[in-house]
């Protein structure tokens, strides 16, 4: 094993004490010729790691172990580090514009480390610099020029040539693609890949550009607030993220194949001087449990990759297995039954938005009602948070049902015309006898505010027929929120509304979903609408789920014929 980092901690002084934990217990390995990507957002600690590998931090700030071919590097003196820097581990820095000394020629700067590390004469060093420059696509005139005379891309390649000059064993790349146009980026990535193979170098790519890492690295480690949360083979981690943060990160990444709007992760990155106790991600995690607040999770191997999560990664919130339902036709033979739903199996993960699309009569509404427990299935079962909803009874069932709420299609049908707004929204709380009357009032007002409705006594006293369709639907949503569910099933929530109202209510649902960390199952016939907010799409046809997959894939590369038909029929302007 060439490079082995164990429990690396880098702390910076803050107000006189050592307070800022930039890197807090990071471990990884890099074999010769292998490539590892470290991804994370700004401030996560990526550049700190890069610099630690070159010993650029004051020694008192670095603890832990960095071993290069067995030799411990942490704690070396500046003299000892000088022999290792560049010769064994080299860095291609991030800030291309200012990384070169403005008063020396580029070629001289490439040749410089060779003079000192390899003892070459000026002529020999220049000769070798020319060779390396040619390999990265630079010409002799570039080497004779000064840094300010080169373009950004040329400087980037000069920095690369400079890093390669002493043939290091490990090449650390800090944000190699930042600030570059797409074409230059693609060329650079190809070059880097080729170089790695040619020279058998270990490559450490530190970046927030997920696509670059996907291209260059074999394995990827996800860094959050100075700690690693997920490590594994790059295609699997990026294609099927298992840690809640990785999942959120991927969904926030603008990628050509996504038609869906960007969705950020709620909350804010933690202050490095004052990280949250327990799991650092817990304030933003939708599935955080009590333990997450106190105890830091360690990286543990789960199914071929390493995840730092007490729950072992993203949880499945709802799981339906083999659901079946058939109805007898009115006035028909008892044997003549219509199979509304046939062998439906699906799962919904924490914080996910899943869309269930299909034409009228495909069985989607029936399926939705079975999932929330309104309709008993003929066969199969529904498991909610590891407990079987279909088998539960009494108080347990009541408790479970409050975790999953339904928003039906017709708001006027969903509420009693006799009750006031306040009473409507308060109903679930009254039924479940939660809290004192004052507390219930407070929750009602809070829910109404969340959906953007007034809380004046006048409004609270209105009745259903005094509200518009959009307003009433919001009241229905508010009612669904008072029990603080984990999953909301919305059955055609906007199809009966005007188009302008539709947009607003869908956006509202999305907002609530993100902010509260709810999962959302959106049932709709309108593919054009759902693809704006759905992470996954399930296509239903005649009672069966015929296709499912990530939202962007379904919309761009549908496989099933029915899906294609739905896509064709979807409304287009012009």
């Amino acid at each position, binding site marked *: 094993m060439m490079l082995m980092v164990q429990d690396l901690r880098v702390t*910076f002084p803050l107000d006189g004490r050592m307070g800022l934990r930039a890197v807090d217990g990071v471990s990884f390995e890099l074999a010769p010729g292998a490539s590892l990507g470290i991804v994370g957002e700004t401030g996560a600690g990526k550049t700190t790691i890069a*610099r630690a590998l070159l010993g*650029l931090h*004051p020694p008192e700030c670095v603890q832990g172990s960095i071993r290069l071919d067995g030799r411990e590097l942490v704690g070396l003196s500046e003299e000892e580090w000088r022999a290792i820097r560049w010769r064994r581990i080299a860095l291609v820095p991030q800030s291309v514009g200012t990384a070169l000394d403005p008063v020396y020629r580029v070629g001289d700067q490439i040749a410089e480390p060779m003079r000192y590390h390899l003892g070459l004469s000026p002529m020999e060093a220049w000769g070798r610099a020319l060779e390396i420059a040619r390999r990265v696509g630079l010409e002799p005139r570039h080497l004779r020029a000064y840094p300010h005379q080169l373009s950004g891309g040329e400087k980037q390649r000069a920095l690369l040539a400079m890093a390669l000059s002493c043939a290091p064993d490990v090449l650390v790349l800090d944000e190699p693609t930042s600030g570059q146009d797409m074409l230059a980026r693609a060329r650079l990535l190809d070059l880097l890949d080729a170089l790695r193979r040619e020279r058998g170098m270990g490559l450490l790519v530190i970046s927030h550009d997920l696509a670059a890492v996907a291209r260059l690295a074999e394995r990827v480690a996800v860094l959050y607030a100075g700690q690693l949360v997920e490590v594994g083979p790059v295609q699997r981690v990026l294609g099927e993220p298992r840690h809640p943060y990785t999942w959120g990160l991927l969904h926030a990444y603008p990628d050509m194949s996504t038609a869906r709007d960007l969705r950020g992760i709620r909350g804010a990155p933690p202050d490095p001087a004052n990280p949250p106790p327990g799991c650092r991600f817990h304030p933003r995690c939708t599935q955080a449990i009590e333990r997450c607040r106190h105890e830091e999770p360690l990286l543990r191997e789960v199914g071929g990759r390493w995840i730092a999560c007490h729950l072992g990664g993203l949880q499945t919130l709802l799981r339906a297995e083999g659901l079946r339902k058939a109805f007898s036709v009115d006035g028909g033979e008892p044997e003549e039954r219509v199979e509304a739903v046939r062998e439906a199996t699906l799962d919904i993960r924490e914080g996910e938005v899943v869309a269930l699309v299909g034409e009228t009569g495909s069985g989607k509404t029936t399926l939705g009602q079975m999932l929330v427990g309104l309709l008993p299935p003929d066969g199969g079962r529904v498991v909610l948070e590891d407990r079987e909803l279909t088998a539960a009874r009494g108080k347990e069932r009541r408790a479970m049902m409050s975790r999953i709420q339904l928003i039906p299609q017709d708001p006027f049908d969903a509420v009693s015309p006799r009750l006031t707004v306040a009473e409507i929204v308060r109903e679930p709380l009254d039924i479940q006898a939660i809290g004192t009357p004052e507390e219930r009032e407070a929750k009602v007002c809070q829910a109404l505010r969340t959906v953007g409705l007034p809380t004046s006594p006048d409004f609270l006293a209105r009745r259903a027929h005094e509200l518009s369709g959009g307003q009433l639907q919001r009241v229905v949503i508010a009612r669904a929120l008072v029990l603080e569910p984990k999953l909301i099933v919305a059955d055609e929530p906007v199809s009966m509304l005007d188009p302008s109202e539709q947009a607003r209510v869908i956006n509202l649902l999305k907002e609530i979903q993100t902010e509260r960390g709810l999962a959302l199952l959106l049932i709709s016939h309108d593919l054009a609408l759902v693809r704006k907010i759905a992470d996954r799409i399930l296509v239903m046809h005649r009672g069966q789920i015929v296709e499912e997959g990530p939202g962007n894939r379904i919309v761009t590369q549908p496989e099933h014929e029915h899906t294609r038909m739905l896509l064709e029929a979807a409304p287009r302007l012009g």
Partner: protein
Amino acid sequence: MRRLGGEVWFGLILLTLCSAVAVLAPVLAPYDPHAFSGQPLERPSRAHPLGTNDVGQDILSELLYGARVSLIVALAAGSGTVLLGLLVGGMAGYAGGWLDQALMRLVDGMMSLPRLPLLILFATFLGSGLPQTIAIISLLFWPATARVVRAQVQSVRQRGYVRMARQFGAGHPYVFLRHILPAIGPLVAYGLVTSAGHAVAMEAGLAFLGLGDPLVKSWGLMMRFALNLPGLFLTDRWLWWLLPPALSVTLLILALTFIGIGMERNLNPRLARRWR
């Protein structure tokens, strides 16, 4: 309450002391500095704590009244410099275009002229009264202030809130007084303090060279007369005649400098520490 460094307190205390002396000179001084109150070149005694100069005037009184001259020059020349700089730099920075270019050519030209030779030339021909000295000093130091003011005014002028004010229909005077002036206020104050320091040094230097007002008892003049005495350093005489005014000038300049340093710290936002 911003934390003021030790040096700033030192500067402020010294300045206050000097101002007090200047104001109270008639009360504190034992004699009229112009009066021939004793024998020439007397040694320090009860009657004359610092002795007398070569024509029999009391040195201590000269010293105390000298504070007035230095402070007047500091204030007047400092203000003159800053006002001129504000005027030219403000106009250039605010108006932009050809006016800016023209004024900046003027500033560049004046800055490229060698300072002291010009000072000497002007002083020779314009006469050596105190007002002339102050005017000459202001005329020679304002370009640097103008440059700095211009840069700052330019940067404020294109800020969003200034453009919005114009959008609301505000006239130029309003914009200048309400937005630009407060923004450059601290800079102007800093300029005043540093110019004052330079002015004191220049005035003393001019008087020392013989180009100052011979009728006004300034510290520079005291030094000049002291140095004119042959063999000054071979006796103790320099200790009570040359040293006090030299020390006073130095301390006043240092005081102003330290205050300036303190102000500068509050002007420049701390750049983030970079890790080596």
